[in-house]
């Protein structure tokens, strides 16, 4: 069946690797994001790689007015509609501490923006009775830490939302997969030295495609993050609050 993928945050490095692989499989791509020049280049790249369709379209997680046109464009496509969410922002925690107003933006980028979009998309997927949703969260959402708890809070909220959405859509034939990457070598982490168990956008994209094939619900990438986060989640709060990890 013909596959169309809505890619939210299609200028991100992680999205690029995922889109390139989908393009080579002949999927159609709706590239939604803020940097239109970059999206146009990504669309050319996707078409050259074999995508059946690649259209850039404006999308801003902080501006719900941009959501409906993306959904309308998707609904014009035949076959199965899928959506992958790569949006998110991670300003340094100190900057948010100094300027609490920044919190709203981080929550909108990483949680409420994409959640509202998916909420609007969900009935259409239910009606078609098929499709996949990939929501990229973060291991940072598994427990609030001193170093990035606003970003972590947003990603944690998003993961909980996805869990509920999966509960709702699973019974209608729509699969929802939560992806929790550890540090990935992307623009977001450039300049941070020696992050542990670093992976690459290309490896994350491979993991996502493999996870979709197997119908995974929650995917940690790299996989080592599942046991690590299981341990971190199990640390009692009286101990955890004194740690800085």
């Amino acid at each position: 069946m013909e596959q169309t993928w809505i890619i939210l945050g299609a200028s991100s490095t992680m999205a690029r690797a995922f889109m390139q692989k989908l393009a080579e499989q002949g999927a159609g791509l709706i590239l939604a994001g803020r940097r239109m020049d970059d999206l146009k280049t990504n669309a050319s790249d996707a078409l050259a790689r074999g995508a059946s369709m690649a259209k850039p379209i404006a999308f801003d997680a902080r501006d719900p007015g941009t959501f409906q046109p993306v959904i309308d464009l998707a609904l014009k496509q035949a076959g199965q509609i899928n959506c992958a969410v790569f949006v998110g922002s991670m300003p340094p925690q100190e900057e948010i501490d100094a300027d609490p107003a920044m919190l709203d933006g981080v929550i909108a980028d990483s949680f409420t923006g994409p959640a509202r979009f998916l909420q609007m998309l969900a009935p259409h997927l239910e009606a078609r009775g098929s499709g996949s949703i990939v929501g990229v969260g973060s291991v940072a959402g598994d427990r609030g830490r001193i170093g990035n708890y606003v970003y972590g809070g947003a990603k944690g909220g998003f993961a909980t939302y996805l869990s509920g959405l999966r509960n709702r859509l699973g019974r209608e034939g729509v699969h929802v997969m939560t992806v929790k990457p550890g540090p990935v070598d992307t623009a977001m982490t450039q300049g941070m030295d020696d992050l542990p168990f670093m992976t690459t956008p290309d490896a994350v994209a491979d993991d996502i495609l493999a996870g979709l094939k197997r119908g995974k619900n929650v995917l940690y990438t790299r996989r080592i993050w599942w046991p690590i986060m299981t341990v971190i989640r199990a640390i009692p709060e009286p101990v955890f609050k004194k740690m800085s990890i």
Partner: protein
Amino acid sequence: MIAMRWRKDIAYTGWGRALTATGRVARPVTEQEIDTIAPAFGNRRSYGDAPLNDGGAALDMTAQDRILAFDRKTGLITVEAGVTIGALARILPPQGWLPPVMPGTGIATVGGAVAMDVHGKNHHNTGSFCQHVTALTLLQNGKRRKITPDRDKRLWAATCGGLGQTGIITQVTIQLKRCPGEVMIVTERRVEDWAEHIAHLDASGATYCVGWIDATATGPKLGRGILEEAEIGSGLAPARPKRRSVPLDAPSWALSGPVVRAFNNLYYRRVPATGRTVVRAFEDFFFPLDKIHDWNRLYGKRGFHQFQCVVPLDRADTLRAMLAEIAESGLASPLAVLKRMGDGRAGYLSFPMPGYTLAVDFPNRESARDLIARLENQAVAARGRIYLAKDGLAKGPSVKAMYPEHPEWVAQVMKADPDGKLATDMVRRLDLRRL
């Protein structure tokens, strides 16, 4: 717009892992992010110090991997410099096209292929990589230039095979070749000695032709190996070998004399005495060693050197003498490659010349380095040259003697990058920016 950020004190090497650089490295995701002129590298498939800038800065171009434009009617493709040859070899054939020239590894980037003016198994009839490049974009000090072979003759010749010294190569336009099929039809035959090997290479009319030499065979068996001739075919399904990887640095005996001799013997006998014709996937034919991921680790922590030279057609005897010295040295070198080259080359420092080229790997030991120095001298004496993409050991005066157009290259480089911001460890070792 994201500002380019640096990682400090990164240690990195070329493919041979014998030479290391430490310095700051940035990996810009788009060309617009590049705010510093520094030597650029791709996947560092050059063996020696061509991609290294010890103590300085370097730009990793591999994140810039997009196809910017592709005209399926004319086969003209424009890509960012970090796109790999292997990606093109995978993406294009189903659409009827193929990169006209492909080096022995698909992991090499297009930018690297330009900076080394690489060649492939079809060099004798198709020429070098840059002969199929129709436009390049360079970032020079403060300006961005799109250059073509017609408008910018000298700068073009200094850029093709020019070790990245005329500017950061960011975009490359290639005229692709029509691809009439989806598999390779490969004829393999044993050749028993040097004379037979050369005779077959001379007589071959195949589009793709290369000889694998058992560099451990001596005496009457000197030069024995397998001749591989291939054409693109269609309608046949190739057998797919498994991918393997070398997870750790191998122990020092992994490529010791007896192991290599045994391996080469098996490799030779793999092909029946009467020869055979097999169907291979493109990637298995063009990039045979890429299946063994990180095979360079077979040489252990000390790494290895590859020696590759070309000598003029009338000096095949010199090459035979060099091979004899290699074989008799007992310095374990697994498969070596022998090929006849044509005259195709695009730049002042391009490697190819009409002649025979021999490529041999050596573990990084003192005795091997001494042997390579002797081989280098013989190549100079034979009016041949060594391939800078493989080199980590040669001396400046020999290299300048081997490349008679070096002065023209210097003139262009000094204009393009007068402050030496793009100088690499190789350029300094060979003192290439001076006459």
